[in-house]
């Protein structure tokens, strides 16, 4: 076939196997960034137009416009452009850039809240249809929830469940569209459908058949969408431009069908590099044009928008879309997966200016080529827009064609998905153990009744005994809630397009999470090694604690404290694992908070570690601010003791440092950051690291004069965000966490 001219290998030609295609054809790059090209005039022109639109968006309270009349679908909107004459890669979610679409099938209530908040109203017809005739995902969930689940959610013991927004987390293998073309993919799915006719029509088979036929339908709709832009995608991509365009169309279709909380891109740079290399070799394009394609692609991804309710924005601040792209890493055969296009992706942060999306994630290995390590560190220091994850830790589990889904957890591309289950508030669970299951803020009995602790000083054994009981009960209702959500999500809001770019039989992970791990650990250490006196209110509920004596907090590489953190993680994971998961998923967990560490703090009373009521949690798995007094390496070392096997969905550490504290001059800073990453990401080391490099004074100025810093980007637990889009409390929290002094 013409489209595959010059490509080697055969396995990928006889089955859908993108990994095999990559391994047979990619060119590892071990050189430096000197080859990179500046933006073309078309890129600069488009950037100017986009900047003006973003300015308008800021002026409109963060939402440029909403199409309230049209329910979003793959084919719902006519083509839209920024400037059709300049765009090398085309396609928008609606007919205008930044104009948001509506997705009523997740939750009508949340949609209406969002519309009203931004000064729009819900179309009455839409309201009638989705309240009278069509059930939403949220209605389904509410119908099946138990009173225990409802109380646990209302009290903030479990928070952020995807019960009224799209669950996200699937990664369609968008590369398949470019490599195989639509005709082949549809034929494949049709033959799978024909084969799926066993003797017994079990619930499972019926569900799978319905899903498969929905997948085929959405692939056909996808063809219509591309056709409306004047592209025939029935055959494989013939050029680099087509390959980029087809991948972009595919993720665009996913974003038009669903408003999932994350919409990861996958691992596309090394794949696309093969097409770019072929075109460069055949003189079809120049380096300038190659960079232009990537620049325009990334620019488009940056324009993705979803309409979110104020309640959602509290948990996931700053309008994130989690278009996570995983870069670099090593192949199982020992060759680096870094290509010139990996560099081109990072280079967009200079050519387009700094921006939080896509969520650029570098898969780190000590064996990565040095020039790539140095360039990554340079980009990090210049932009604070990159996150890093341990490829040597994940590769043994997921192979070399996995990508990060959403925030920090890995998924095998096209072969696996996740049932996202947000997180529980572990410090609150500990307080419930002390208070007999009554909420420390409201006094409401949330767990089944049991005897509270009544002694003046807390006894470690007694607290532990009750804490385990609460965890056991909590794990049970938590699994119930997540199972219900995904049952209903599949039933009422199935993401048929994304799933059409997966194999027939996929692995499923059900992901649970812990927030406030370090607070729970510090509290246990305080109870064990210091003396903790309980202050109770008139209802007998512990509302404050007085600590005398010392304990060593999490984050100082203390063996006993670190072991306590590991044990707590392991124990809760065991409680979770005893339950049956929806669709026989494999349970896993994350230690991650997103920006909800602030909200969690507000919902949680004083804790035995000395944290006052309402004070923020630390983000992700971070030690509590100011308690890690032996330097950042000791702090990172503690976090890397959290067992990855129990938390494969990610253990997030957010690191912020002022430039002078990182090193005296630019070269030293770069080298020290590389050392930090090499040290943290040993084969049994840490899993995830956000890197922020900025002066506190800059952030303080940005708080006071946001208009001067429209593009200032920082990393928070799990994503990157425009600093000025955070709430004031979140901004202050970020500032307080920056390491400023050099010793």
């Amino acid at each position, binding site marked *: 076939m013409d489209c595959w001219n010059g490509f080697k290998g055969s396995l990928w030609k006889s089955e859908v196997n993108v990994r095999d295609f990559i391994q047979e054809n990619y060119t590892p790059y071990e050189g430096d960034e000197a080859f990179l090209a500046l933006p073309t005039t078309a890129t600069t022109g488009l950037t100017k137009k986009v900047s003006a639109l973003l300015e308008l968006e800021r002026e409109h309270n963060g939402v440029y416009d909403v199409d309230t009349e049209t329910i979003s679908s793959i084919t719902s909107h006519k083509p839209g452009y920024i400037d059709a004459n300049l765009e090398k890669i085309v396609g928008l979610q609606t007919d205008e850039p930044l104009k948001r679409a509506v997705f009523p099938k997740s939750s009508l209530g949340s949609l209406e809240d969002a519309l009203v908040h931004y000064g729009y109203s819900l179309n009455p017809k839409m309201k009638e249809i989705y309240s009278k005739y069509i059930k939403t995902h949220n209605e389904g969930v509410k119908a099946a929830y138990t009173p225990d689940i409802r109380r646990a959610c209302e009290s903030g013991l479990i928070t952020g469940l995807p019960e009224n927004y799209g669950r996200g987390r699937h990664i369609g293998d968008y590369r398949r569209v470019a490599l195989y073309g639509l005709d082949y993919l549809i034929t494949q799915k049709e033959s799978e459908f024909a084969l799926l006719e066993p003797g017994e029509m079990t619930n499972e088979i019926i569900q799978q058949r319905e899903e498969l036929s929905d997948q085929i339908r959405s692939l056909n709709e996808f063809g219509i969408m591309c056709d409306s832009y004047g592209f025939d995608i029935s055959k494989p991509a013939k050029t680099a431009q087509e390959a980029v365009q087809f991948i972009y169309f595919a993720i665009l279709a996913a974003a038009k069908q669903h408003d999932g909380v994350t919409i990861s891109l996958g691992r596309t740079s090394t794949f696309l590099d093969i097409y770019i290399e072929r075109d460069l070799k055949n003189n079809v394009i120049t380096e300038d044009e190659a960079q232009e394609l990537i620049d325009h692609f990334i620019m488009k991804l940056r324009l993705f928008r979803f309409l979110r309710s104020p309640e959602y924005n509290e948990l996931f601040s700053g309008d994130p879309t989690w278009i996570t792209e995983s870069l670099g890493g090593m192949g199982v055969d020992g060759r680096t997966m870094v290509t010139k296009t990996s560099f081109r992706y990072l280079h967009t942060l200079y050519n387009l200016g700094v921006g939080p999306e896509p969520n650029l994630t570098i898969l780190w290995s000590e064996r990565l080529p040095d020039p790539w390590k140095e360039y990554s560190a340079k980009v990090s220091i210049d932009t604070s827009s990159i996150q890093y994850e341990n490829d040597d830790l994940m590769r043994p589990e997921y192979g070399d064609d996995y990508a990060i889904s959403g925030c920090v957890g890995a998924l095998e591309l096209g072969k696996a998905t996740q049932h996202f289950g947000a997180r529980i508030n572990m410090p609150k669970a500990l307080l419930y153990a002390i208070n007999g299951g009554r909420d420390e803020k409201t006094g409401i009995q949330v767990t089944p009744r049991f005897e509270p602790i009544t002694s003046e000083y807390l006894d470690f054994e007694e607290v532990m005994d009750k804490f385990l009981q609460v965890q056991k009960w909590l794990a049970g209702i938590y699994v119930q809630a997540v199972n219900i959500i995904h049952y209903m999500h599949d039933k009422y809001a199935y993401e048929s397009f994304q799933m059409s770019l997966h194999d027939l039989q996929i692995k499923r992970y059900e992901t649970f999470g812990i927030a406030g791990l370090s607070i729970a650990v510090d509290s246990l250490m305080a109870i064990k090694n210091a003396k903790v006196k309980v202050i109770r209110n008139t209802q007998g509920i512990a509302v404050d604690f007085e600590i005398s004596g010392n304990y060593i907090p999490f984050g100082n590489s203390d063996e006993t404290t670190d072991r306590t953190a590991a044990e707590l993680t392991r124990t809760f994971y065991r409680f979770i694992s005893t339950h049956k998961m929806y669709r026989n998923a494999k349970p896993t967990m994350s230690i991650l908070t997103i920006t909800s560490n602030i909200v969690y703090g507000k919902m949680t009373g004083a804790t035995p570690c000395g944290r006052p009521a309402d004070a923020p949690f630390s983000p992700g798995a971070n030690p509590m601010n100011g308690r890690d007094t032996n330097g950042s390496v000791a702090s990172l070392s503690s976090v890397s003791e959290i067992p990855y096997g129990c938390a494969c969905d990610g253990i997030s550490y957010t690191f912020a440092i002022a430039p002078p504290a990182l090193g*005296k001059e630019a070269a030293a800073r770069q080298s020290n950051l590389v*050392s930090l990453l090499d040290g943290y990401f040993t084969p049994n080391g840490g899993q995830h690291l956000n890197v922020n490099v900025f002066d506190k004074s800059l952030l303080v100025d940005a708080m006071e004069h946001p208009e001067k810093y429209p593009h200032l980007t920082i990393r928070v637990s799990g994503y990157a965000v425009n600093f000025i889009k955070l709430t004031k409390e979140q901004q202050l929290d970020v500032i307080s966490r920056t390491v400023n002094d050099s010793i």
Partner: protein
Amino acid sequence: MEKGPILGKIHSFESFGTVDGPGLRFVVFMQGCAFRCLYCHNPDTFEMDKASYELTPLEVLQRMQKFLPYYRRGGITVSGGEPMLQPRFIKELFEICKGEGIHTAIDTAGISLSEDVRDVLNYTDLVLLDLKCIDPEIHLILTDKPLEPTLDFAKYLAEKEIPTWIRYVLVPGMTDRDDLIEKHAEFVAGLKNVVKVEVLPFHKLGEKKYETLGIEYKLKDVKPPSQERIDNAKNIYKSKGIVVN
């Protein structure tokens, strides 16, 4: 000779040392100092008997062992206080570090050349030498100690060809004088083992500690040097062919 393991009197540890030698380093701050530099930002390390830790060299190594993957481009730096007040401890610490392939650096004011001190230097990859002022009288006012031993120390390092970084703290009204910097630079230019000079602008980050300790802070009214003065000092070193940053 004392019996039993040597215990080091230690003030504190920093696992993320980025400014005391090349690369990322584990920094051990020793307790005790003979100098009383007016601008010292660690006055809490002055008194030898106020150590937070008393540890054997092996115990110190164990504290950094877990972190070794971070220090492949760096190593260990012993600072203080004045580490050369505890040379036998440092020698043993560096000896076992060298056995583990760890790069060793010592941040010292070069107070003596006793046999024990020379032993330490046999296991030292890099010396960060604080040569605080080239004028003997100002040196005495600034540090409360004579200049001569430090000059002897510097010459000994040159003779032994031990790689050295010279540190010069730029204090307005005291060390920030062109003639003093010129002379300092001339002396340094004669030492072939010097890799570079670090010009460290005076800062007041330690002022609070003086209050807490009840020690008078004599540089209250001195301001940090301007960027121009910093560049001026650097240029003087550069003009003598010395690498500076």
